[in-house]
């Protein structure tokens, strides 16, 4: 069932991501200048006339790995990234699919994988403003 947003308001769309056991990604605010932050972006033409008001990332867990002198800010297991969308009152009502991508770079305790883009697709329904 698609999520419902109301025209003329701001709505939150939380998206849950899950990593397989034994993997971690850098958080949105890595603890090292060379590390690649996790970042969710939405495809502006595909979401228009909705606008992204803010994207809230969870705080990273500070984890110490054998390969690093200091703890790193990472996500592992399940984590939620929430986007707040601004919807104009004139937004056409009905079903929509919002598309975007999650850029991330994952590692295990011995190996790292190149940065990847994960396609994100979310179905919503816009209800008329009241």
């Amino acid at each position, binding site marked *: 069932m698609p999520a419902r947003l109301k025209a003329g308001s701001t709505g939150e769309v939380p998206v849950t991501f899950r990593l397989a056991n034994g993997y971690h990604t850098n958080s949105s605010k890595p603890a090292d200048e060379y590390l690649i932050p996790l970042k969710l972006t939405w495809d502006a033409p595909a979401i228009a006339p909705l606008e992204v008001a803010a994207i809230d990332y969870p705080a990273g867990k500070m984890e110490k790995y054998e390969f*690093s002198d200091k703890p790193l800010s990472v996500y592992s297991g399940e984590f939620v990234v929430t986007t707040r969308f601004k919807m104009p009152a004139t937004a056409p009502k009905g079903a929509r699919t919002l598309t975007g991508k999650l850029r991330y770079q994952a590692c295990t305790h011995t190996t*790292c994988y*190149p940065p990847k883009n994960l396609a994100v697709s979310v179905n919503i329904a816009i209800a008329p403003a009241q």
Partner: protein
Amino acid sequence: MTSKLRFLPALLAGAIMALSCGSTGSVVRAAVKKEKDRRPAPNFTLKDSMGRPVKLSDYKGKVVLLNFWATWCGPCKIEIPWFIEFEKTYKDKGFAVLGVSMDDEGWDVVKPYVEKTKINYRMVIGDDMTAELYGGVDSLPTSFMLDREGRIAATHVGLVSKSAYQNDINTLFGASAAAAPAAGGAVQVAGAGQR
């Protein structure tokens, strides 16, 4: 007004780690292959930080540690000081480390890191074509030990121990050439008899 939505798209669950296929991420320790089992290391030409071409084939006659890495790869950074030491110890004995950075941003990020870390071996920026020649290099670090004939004698995927590389070097040099440094006194042995 803010409407709170409870929307958890199940389609994303598990998708994030699709890239984990084919690798467990565990430490892989490969022994040096027998000569008959070694295949030629694919040749490539890449540029160093000065824009000079570096051909792998130019290293024929040397034992080469070919290391694919990136600045964003934590485990890679553990190995780099070992490689610096190996280069220092064995450079004059027919050994070379060749680093291949897989950073998309190229020298903009690699050059400052090389300088900061005082990397003493040659570095080039890799590309997809080169990675493909070596099986795709799906994860980092990935290193290949090449014998003097330019054949792949050992492959290491993921962080392995310093002693694993040391053993490779010892084997490829022959026991007599590298036995003393293998015991942990590399720097002292390198200078012995020269003063």
